[in-house]
């Protein structure tokens, strides 16, 4: 029989601990496949964040380091500066990156650090049980915004790609989503491109991925995909926010 599909060598043979319908598993596979396709697995150091993907090192067949909440871009900076020949991937959730670690991500991007950030935006704190995140939508209910996020008290969602795109140093910034096959393909392409740019030493590359959290949104996996499409994508438009050499500011 002809084998037409096999699991990537980038992932260990271990069952994900993620909830059914969660986007983390899909994003993991795309990162791992891309690293394998580009023959980068053997020189990659993955950074696992604080959040549902804290045990990322259970899965990736690479070197791994666990960073404290929000600090992954600083850890990545140290890793990459110590070992410029390695491929460094910081994998972070929105609570981690857009709340605790806002200073770290902005300054790593502003320095144009030559590593890749995969940013999983699920509009909520997953691991701690569904509290409001900086990316939670206006009106969205969470365990700490039980009446829906009210901008009078909680402000408005933070748009990370747009914010980072105001800086001159980043090389590549794109937002994608996991809601249908076309967008899955775009996500995979964006991750590959980000890694390729890093390998060529071109600078900071950033892929934001809109991803479902059925558990904490209180929805079935199907409903969550639909909710992502109807609510998150209008708030967080997909597309390329930067594809230029550092210093040239253009989309």
């Amino acid at each position, binding site marked *: 029989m002809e084998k037409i599909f096999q699991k990537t060598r980038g992932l260990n043979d271990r069952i994900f601990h993620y909830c059914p319908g969660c986007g983390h598993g899909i994003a993991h596979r795309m990162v791992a496949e891309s690293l394998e396709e580009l023959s980068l*697995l*053997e*020189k*990659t*150091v993955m950074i*696992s964040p604080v959040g549902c993907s*804290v*045990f990322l*090192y259970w899965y*990736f*067949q*690479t*070197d*791994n*380091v*666990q*960073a*404290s909440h929000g*600090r992954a871009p*600083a*850890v*990545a*900076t*140290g*890793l*990459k*500066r*110590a*070992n410029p020949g*390695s*491929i460094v991937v910081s994998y972070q959730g929105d609570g981690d990156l857009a709340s605790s670690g806002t*200073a*770290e991500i*902005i*300054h790593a991007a502003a*320095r144009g650090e030559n590593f890749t950030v995969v940013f999983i935006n699920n509009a909520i704190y997953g691991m701690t049980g569904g509290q409001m995140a900086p990316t939670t939508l206006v009106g969205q209910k969470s365990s700490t915004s039980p009446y829906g996020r009210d901008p009078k008290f909680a402000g408005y969602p933070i748009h990370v790609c747009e914010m980072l795109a105001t800086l001159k140093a980043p090389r590549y910034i794109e937002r994608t989503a996991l809601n249908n096959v076309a967008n899955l393909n775009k996500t995979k392409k964006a991750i590959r491109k980000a890694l390729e740019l890093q390998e060529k030493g071109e600078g900071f590359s950033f892929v934001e991925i809109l991803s479902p959290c059925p558990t904490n949104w209180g929805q079935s996996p199907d409903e969550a995909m639909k909710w992502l499409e109807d609510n998150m994508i209008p708030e967080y438009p997909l597309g390329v926010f930067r594809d230029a050499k550092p210093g040239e500011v253009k989309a």
Partner: protein
Amino acid sequence: MSKKVLMKGNEAIAEAAVRAGCKLYFGYPITPQSEIPEYMSRRLPKIEGGAYIQAETEVSAINMVYGAASTGKRAMTSSSSPGVSLMMEGISYLAGAELPCLLVNIMRGGPGLGNINPEQADYFQAVKGGGHGSYHLIVLAPSSVQEMADLTVEGFNLADKYRNPVMVVAEGNLGQMMEPVEFKESYPQTVDHSAWALTGAKGRPGHVVTSIYLAAEDMEKYIQKLYRKYDLIEKTEVRYEEFMMDDAEVVLVAYGIVSRVVRNVVEALREEKIKAGMIRPITLWPYPKDIIRKRADQAKFFLTCEMSTGQMVEDVLLSVNGKKPVYFYGRFGGMVPTPAEIVAEVKKYYK
């Protein structure tokens, strides 16, 4: 033979670090330690594989150290008291992940913004924790510019040997003081970190650097392992200096810059036929408790002198364990005790 050069304490630390093979420095400006990042920003970019980054905060600086130390290379940061407070999260993670690195605290007045004058009030933070969880740093306290250089090299070696962060603590005036210092021709590094360092998983399973152990039994085992290491360090790495202790009845205990004042105190008391001596801890952790306990047999009393409201005195008390009285004399806010003040203090208790 290398020759002596006149250097500021802070510069001696920086030069010694470079000579010891430190390739990576991450830090943030704060008085009175800014000569260290300034020196590193001149030196490291000119060295093969060297990198200097002015981090956006001390929080980031310590996490850059965490990343760099994960590769097995020699990395360091330095700061002063308020900055070191910001680093505490990262320091706990470094200790938890058993990463070797050098941390320098050129201490100033506190709490809060305090002032930029010298103090020793970060003793508790350095020695008893400061970050969360059960851990220890190895803490080294130099008392001269030469020792700032020597203990920097020693600090990297100890860090490598035990896979543990090492902190050098010195008072602001020591950092700013100029004295002659001599460096050796070379400082060999002998520890091989390839068994765990993150360099890419070529031809081997991936390495993991982490401090998370969700299951209670795993976490307990891991802390037990850490504490076996700390036990070994306590048995083998205690460093201290004794001055005129052979027949001493009055035992003064002081570290860092204060020990230089106390040395004069001992000499002054000896001229008056008072049998005084000094024990100077060089490692603040592991603490030289055995020698203090031993000297309690011959002592009439102990007097601990510090530039704080009394932090190390607790360790002296624990070491003496009730055998003899332990008194305390301290100045703070940048006030350095004078020999005359301490002599007068001794005479209050000496009959």
